[in-house]
């Protein structure tokens, strides 16, 4: 599956970088989401959890 993140709406909670560090990191300047690896195996639990946990709902999995 492909990971997309809306950086404009990101609130920099860090839940994605905490939960799925192999796919997500945070911008050093303001902590906003960086998708470091945009492809993940379908249903990958860490990535699915990161999307679910995101408080601003900015992570989309396609």
């Amino acid at each position, binding site marked *: 599956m492909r990971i997309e993140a809306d950086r404009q709406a990101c*609130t*920099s*909670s*860090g839940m994605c*970088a*905490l*939960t799925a*560090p192999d796919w997500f*990191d*945070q*911008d*050093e*300047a*303001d*902590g*906003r989401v960086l998708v470091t690896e945009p492809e993940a195996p379908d249903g990958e639990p860490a990535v699915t*959890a990161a999307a*679910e*946990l995101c*408080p*601003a*709902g900015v992570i989309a999995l396609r």
Partner: protein
Amino acid sequence: MSDAEVLPYGMPYERQTRYDPPAALLELQDRPIRPIRYYPDGVEGWLVTGHAAGRKVLADPRFVTGERFTRSPTELPHVFVSITDQVPPGFFLFFDPPEHTRLRRKVTGVFTVKRMKELEPRVADIVDERIAALRAAGPGADLVREFALPVPSLVICEMLGVPYADRAAFQGNSANMLDLSLSVEDRNKAMAEIFGYLIDLVPAKRANPGDDMVSAFAADPDLHDVEAAGMALILLVAGHETTANMLALGTMTLLEHPAQLERLRAEPGLMPGAVEELLRYLTVAHNGVMRIAKEDAEIDGHRITAGQHVTVALHAANRDPGRYERPDALDLGRDAQGHMAFGHGVHQCVGQQLARVEMRIGFAKLLEAFPGLRLAVPSDQIPMRSDMAVYGVHTLPVEW
């Protein structure tokens, strides 16, 4: 919904046990969202006790915080009522996007997962120092005074560049600001005192900058001094009142759940998950988070009209049986992810990754240093913070 229905008045807040939300509140879980009457005038608003409904409300930009909160879900005025009576500039919890975004993004780079990882050795040093102080105070010492409050206080002071030696100016006032038994005027006076202290600190930091957040605010051309002080104010207060209570109440909870404590001692790898479960189980932000509907909105088939107050009872949502199996059991091995102890939506706790680091290191080192840690008085003699916006214990005498 029948018009004839008698609406519950307010959000129940009297606890029957030390660790569980009020029984009368949990009884309201049969409906995830319902109308209630608000204090002081009985005007209708909403109470959310369901996990999914709570997430919906807090993630929905139609429910805002940049308004003056005039009503409370509890008889003692809510902490949002006192703070929004005179919101300090820069106090970004009470601004909505885009202003909230502008202010919050000035601090989020400091609280990233990576930055908090880098801070771990310093947190560990501070924890070690406070464990030594607790030991030196001797059996019977108050864990709140020697350990649970100083650890997060020292950490946030160092990050902000607020001299810990000045703590008389903010530790007591920070507590008073969130003391619901005080009048709104007295809480505002406490807030004004810390704020005044920080307003003086900003130009002092500009004149003599350090590698810290207040110095960065002072140097930021996009922030005026009072705004910079307001940003420091929210971080200072939030940094004091939350982790301190989780450390103390969490320790007491572990001591009173010996089988769970034994499990954690035997398997230190459980710690990250155990911290999440303690956050879920205890949910110290037990005053409910409020929002005001900016426009008419429908949630789960309920029509919420513009101007109405909505309270999300985080402590009830975290005990939602639709989200967690056996929600009233403390189970350090469970997957507590997705709990709402830090809130949800764009205002979700900005310091949550710091709190996690402080708790993981704090609990681990405390348990390691004191294999025989126990309460020094019967647990029913521990004074609980029932009238404080952040739940916990006032004191926790321990021996080892």
